[in-house]
């Protein structure tokens, strides 16, 4: 019991932590030894956390809350639905861009085209077409739902 009080968890927890860190330390030391540019390896490892936790996530969260504050203002059913019919396709389109941006934006200079013999020009068009389809499909469903949602909102007003 004394151990749990001093350490904050069971001895198994401590053993697992030590085992995990030893394997990670071994892998890191191997990588640093094998790679010709170990510094860049460490930078990418750390920068990936900064890029996601401190840049990408706050950025899309801020866009999200701005959208909630403007589009879903008043919290009527139809406004909340409009918000969701925008942000679901936006999230999916953003995901596709996040994963495939080297091809979509052509950042991979000429390595891809020269090695594969394929053109990377089609990807921007395909991503735009996919995004357009997602937004259009979502808008169509929203239009079909709009009447029912409006009736629900006015009904809610009358009930008030």
């Amino acid at each position, binding site marked *: 019991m004394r151990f749990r009080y001093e*350490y*904050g*968890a069971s001895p*198994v*927890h*401590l053993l*697992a*932590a030590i*085992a*995990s*860190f030893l*394997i*990670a330390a*071994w*892998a*890191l030391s*191997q990588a640093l030894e*094998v*790679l*010709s*540019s170990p510094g*860049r*390896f460490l930078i*990418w*490892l*750390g920068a*990936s*956390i900064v*890029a*996601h*936790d401190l840049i990408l*996530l706050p950025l899309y*969260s801020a866009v999200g809350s701005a959208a909630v504050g403007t589009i879903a203002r008043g*919290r009527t059913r139809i406004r*909340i639905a409009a*918000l*969701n019919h925008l942000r*679901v396709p936006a*999230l*999916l389109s953003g*995901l*596709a861009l*996040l*994963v*495939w941006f*080297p*091809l979509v934006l052509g*950042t*991979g*200079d000429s*390595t*891809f085209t*020269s*090695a*594969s*013999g*394929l*053109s990377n020009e089609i*990807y921007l068009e*395909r991503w735009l077409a996919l995004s357009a389809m997602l937004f259009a499909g979502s808008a169509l469903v929203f239009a079909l739902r709009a009447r029912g949602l409006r009736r629900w909102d006015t009904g809610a007003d009358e009930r008030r």
Partner: protein
Amino acid sequence: MRGPWLASFLSSALLPLIAICAFTGFVSHAAYDTGLGSNGLFDEGVDLYFFDWPTRPAWLYAATQGLHVVSGLAAIPILLAKLWAVIPQLFENPAVRSVAHGLERIGLALLVGGSLFVFATGVLNIQLWYPFGFSFVPAHYYGAFVFLAALAFHVLTKVPVMRQAFRERGVVRPLRDDLAHTEPEPELEGRHTTAPEDPAPPTMTRRLLLGTVGAGSLGLTVMGAGQVVGGPFRELALLAPRGEDFGDGPNDFQVNKTFKSVNIPREEVGGDWGLVLEVDGERREVLDRDQLLAMDQVTAELPIACVEGWTTTQTWTGVRLSELARVAGAGNPSEVEVRSVQPAGAFRRATLNRGQIRQSDSLLALKVNGEDLSLDHGFPARVIVPALPGVHCTKWVGKMVFKSDGNAPDSASVRNPA
């Protein structure tokens, strides 16, 4: 919206995908038979592989590597959602509650950094963009060890939280709530979790949030699977790097490295080309293309699969590797190093194991789909072996160095060919 149930639900979807991805990743590494010749691209510290890569089923490598890339892609939206769900813990207060909690947080830094690193390098690699300036294979390999070691510790510490969350909230019950019934998650008794203290009113149900994540995952699965299955399904690989068609001709299928990109002088693969057969460093035969075509020709329909997660199945015709071993007088060779005339590149040579040489569908292909190979596909001759990783199916072959059984080759002459 955030809370221990949401994090647990995402984790239980993420964990099987990561398990598949990790397992197939290590299996893919084994497929390179890194203990043979110069197949090992870097010093591995420990040799985790103790078996020869098999040749059956022929689609084995297409399956393992396809699963690796597809499960990895499918995991991305779930990983992002999971990180979103637990982000408040990055800024939790007090920052460290105990030694154990401090160690968990160090583990989390390794976990988040390791996972983002492994996924990012993998995704960039399949699109052939290398902005990181270090060698992909060892970095992805050792990054995976860091990630998995941290993940094992994390799973061990969080399984009780997951069980408690599922016990208190039900595994799928929160998915049934409509917007009016979407309540913030309560804190689990006796735990510090991401359950919000002062949540904003919900604008989305949990099922819509998770449905969106699932749709993203499914979309990436379809794109990834399209380039593995190929044929008409390749069109589904909308944004995947190998979703494009070349055309209908016999040589119109995916190329890993074009002839132009590897800087082979044209005359090296012209009329003067000849295949040199060596045994234990001693030159035994030189065969030109007509002589090879005059030998027994074998036809086999075999897939060729790339480590980047795409596959194409074609009908190859050529001379059996075992027949070439016989002609060279190599007996029952334990291995053969196949060398390309390619002047540079890590994969201009590959060593095949005994089983791969003996397999009756292992060919030095001269033709594909009834026509001569094109330059992009390795003219005058290329290796095709069932279940062998694509980059080991050496193109523009110039020399094959057999190692006869129990008789080590003169290593100096192997390294410095005449």
